[in-house]
């Protein structure tokens, strides 16, 4: 078989006025697909991610942040002062030569700069422009301020996530940002396909709050159907028992185990060296195990505590039961499977050299 070596979006140019994570994650998708992405940056308003660690070898510098370097691979950077009218002229010239404009300033900022969609479509009639904002470009809260970490609670995700009986929680990352970025990429690609067929561009309004609620349908519909807010229930699942993350041997090592069926429960019991559990009627069905979930989890935890998470994973996967260690960033970086698949990139960078991304 012969493969085309030309990437899908070759020849598409993106004027990228985004910053922090959500917007840059959208343009990262486009860059990965071969678009020429030009990030417009300025000395007076340096992207937050250039100012945050990790720093290459612990030494700070605007070109040395792993956070920035990870999410801006494959892009070019144009330093431009948008507070200067001459800078705005250059920005307009760039837009005239681009296919897509992507921005995630607060609502209204691009209009105030003279770079709103109505202005820009005059110089580029088939322009596709997307704005990513916390609350969207319309509605009574469109001017509310929103930072990445606030999106998880605002969207409703925190009210559903947490240990049982504990306060609402985060999910470990500013999850609304990549979720918005990916949805934005879907919208831009659909608009590009439409433009190729019809010659029409368009404006896309993406609300981070809405694109995250889109992933919480189980919670929304539980309330819509029965008027009940699902309880925060840790790692448990309404239908699968056991379904948890269990402590293993070593310092802060854990393994996730999910038993999807009664047959998998029998396989787990055998692997645990307790075949009598497989024949115990009290645990035979998911409903029975649900009634005794604390007891079931205690039995599993007693088995995992003396073994490594890797060993538990191998034993359970050998009998078809889903299990995997709770991977740290170090575990992932050293993972043989991801290495074998060529997941990581190693490109030379003038300031930080070749790093794993």
């Amino acid at each position, binding site marked *: 078989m012969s493969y085309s070596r030309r990437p899908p979006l070759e020849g598409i140019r993106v004027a990228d006025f985004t910053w922090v994570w959500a917007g840059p*994650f959208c343009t990262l998708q486009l860059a990965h697909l071969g678009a020429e992405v030009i990030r417009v940056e300025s000395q007076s308003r340096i992207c937050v991610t250039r100012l945050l660690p990790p720093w290459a070898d612990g030494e700070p510098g605007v070109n040395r942040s792993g956070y920035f370097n990870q999410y801006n691979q494959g892009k070019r950077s144009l330093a431009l002062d948008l507070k200067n009218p001459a800078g705005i002229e250059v920005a307009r010239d760039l837009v005239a030569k681009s296919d897509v404009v992507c921005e995630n300033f607060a609502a209204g900022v691009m209009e105030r700069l003279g770079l709103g969609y109505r202005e820009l479509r005059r110089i580029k009639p088939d322009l596709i422009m997307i704005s990513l904002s916390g609350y969207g470009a319309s509605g009574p809260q469109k001017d509310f301020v929103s930072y990445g970490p606030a999106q998880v609670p605002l969207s409703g995700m925190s009210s559903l996530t947490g240990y049982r009986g504990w306060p*609402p929680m985060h999910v470990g990352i500013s999850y609304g940002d990549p979720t918005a970025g990916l949805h934005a990429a879907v919208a831009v690609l659909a608009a590009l396909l439409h433009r190729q067929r019809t010659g029409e561009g368009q404006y896309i309004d993406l609300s981070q709050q809405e694109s995250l609620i889109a992933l919480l349908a189980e919670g929304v519909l539980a309330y819509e159907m029965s008027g009940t807010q*699902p309880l925060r229930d840790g790692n448990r699942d309404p239908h699968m028992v056991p*379904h948890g993350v269990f402590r293993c041997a070593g310092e802060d090592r854990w393994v996730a185990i999910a038993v999807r069926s009664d047959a998998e429960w029998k396989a787990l019991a055998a692997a645990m060296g307790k075949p009598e559990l497989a024949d115990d009627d009290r645990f035979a069905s998911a409903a029975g195990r649900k009634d005794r979930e604390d007891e079931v989890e205690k039995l599993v935890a007693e088995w995992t505590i003396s073994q490594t998470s890797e060993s538990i994973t191998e034993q359970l996967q050998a009998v078809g039961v889903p299990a995997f260690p709770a991977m*740290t960033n170090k575990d*992932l970086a050293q993972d043989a*499977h991801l290495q074998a698949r060529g997941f990581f990139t190693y490109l030379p960078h003038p300031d930080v050299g070749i790093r794993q991304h």
Partner: protein
Amino acid sequence: MGEMALAHLRVVECGSLVAAAYAAKLLADLGADVIKVEVPRQGDPTRQRGPFPGGVPDPEASGLFLYLNANKRGITLDPRAAAGRRLLERLVAHADVLIHNVPPAEMHEHGLDYEFLSARNPGLVMTSIAPFGLSGPRAGYQASDLVLWNAGGIAALNGGGPGTDDLPPLKAFGSQAEFQGGLNAAVATLGALFERLRSGRGQHVEVSIQECLAAILELAFEFWPYQGLVASRLGMKPIQPLDFMECRVGWIFLCCIEEHQWAAFVDLMGNPEWAAMEIFSDRLSRAANWDALRLFLAEWVKDQSVDELYRAAQARRIPFAPVSTMGDLLASEHLKARGFFAAIPHPRAGTLRYPGAPYKLSRTPWCLRRPAPLLGQHNREVYLNLLGLEERELGALAAAGIV
């Protein structure tokens, strides 16, 4: 309203649970004709997951199924039978896209062989979503959403913070690993369709959900390659306040990232004496002394109303957010004004409001056109009209349990 952006595309989806179904939903909601293929009699396991109206299980009224599969047509087909696989081949010959998340080890027996299918339909884009991808030493591993959330490295970043060593890494609500797999699959599929405009050829797109998650660890992943450090859920937050706090009724998320936001919050609280203490003078020292600061703040916040504090903070450009409950979202004036929730009647579940457009396209808007299919609802129109089967052929296939 003009033609929808993807109205010219036909998509066949062999999806189980969330990942492939969400990828196909993103295309269906922008106009693609998506034909969802389910196993006769059982259907997609999402039909068993709920939530259900009044909590009563009904495979035709599972909330997650209804959400993920609106705008699609539904047929049944048993790919384990040779006659079923032949029907699938014929169907795929009429399609631009095939999206599935059949486990790699079962693809061949389901007739999901790219070389074979693309020989009959060179323009086909086939998108395979698998927990650990189609290649590599762990391609055959079993997974669930919880297991993937851990395998991708996000769970290890989430916990109760310092001093909660006994609590496990924590998953996020719902089926988030699968949703991320579906999102990435939609991006890659649309990219391949764009490339097809130039080359006239489709291609095989492969998505590993583990990789989708390992790619969104924010700043955590690079701590290893850049500084040789392991990121942990037990670490202290670098700046504060950036935390949840209980109000009179409900919770609020306090968020002061810039110094001027903290200053505005102190002013909002009426400039209490403790706020002037040296140990709270900047965001780093507020984080270092969070145990003390938290007590002062909690004492003040506990008497506030979530909504009033949220609005007072926003009026001063402080980015606080309410910890929205599901009821809060459905009642939100803002989301109502934007027309976010979309209602549609369904013969078994009645009229329900679903999360709606995740983006508003000005020329080719997102649109909810039809409710999720009943199991096999469109067998006749697809098999008779699209594939040209005769009534008696379809009858025989149904009698044999193949459709």
